[in-house]
């Protein structure tokens, strides 16, 4: 399936990705996948969204990092602290091929988006979890911003 307005097909044209992502690591990963044709649904916080939007105001008021890393994505702004908000994202994930997140340590699990839980309900789902300082090391519980 070609993206609307696209004259050529791309390798990931039929792939849908739901990403709870911010800053650089996950947005860069999904930006590359979007460039290859994937549909990327970016889940953002309702208050300020991906905080890289505010790293600076270099591009018409939006952070240069955000512009660099988020072209071609769809943005849904939703409160994941609300059960109804989480349910919306779960339904989007049910229809997706890939789930990506780079939330802080343990946050995805607390919100019900842990890899094991998602895979138990959606065995075909590819789950990618990106952490700031890896796992198993002395800094694994540190947050990155």
């Amino acid at each position, binding site marked *: 399936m070609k993206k609307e307005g696209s004259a050529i097909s791309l390798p990931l044209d039929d792939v849908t990705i739901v990403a709870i992502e911010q800053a650089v690591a996950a947005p860069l990963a999904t930006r590359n996948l979007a460039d290859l044709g994937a549909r990327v649904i970016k889940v953002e916080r309702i208050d*300020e969204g991906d905080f890289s939007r505010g790293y600076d105001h270099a591009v018409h008021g939006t952070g240069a990092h955000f512009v660099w890393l988020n072209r*071609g*994505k769809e*943005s849904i702004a939703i*409160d994941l602290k609300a059960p109804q908000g989480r349910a919306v994202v779960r339904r989007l994930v049910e229809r997706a091929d890939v789930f990506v997140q780079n939330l802080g340590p343990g946050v995805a699990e607390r919100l019900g988006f842990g890899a094991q839980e998602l895979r138990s309900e959606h065995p075909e789902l590819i789950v990618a979890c990106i952490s700031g300082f890896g796992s198993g090391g002395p800094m694994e519980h540190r947050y990155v911003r």
Partner: protein
Amino acid sequence: MGDVPALGQHTHALLVESGMDAATVDDTVKRGIALQAERFPPGPTE
């Protein structure tokens, strides 16, 4: 290469895609659970 999205630019459409009816979408936005970008109001088919 697509455009860079505004915060919540596609919220309304994605709420509908998730299975919500129009009344529930409106209620979800009114209650502050979801945000639709003001610069991009939902289209007539959403």
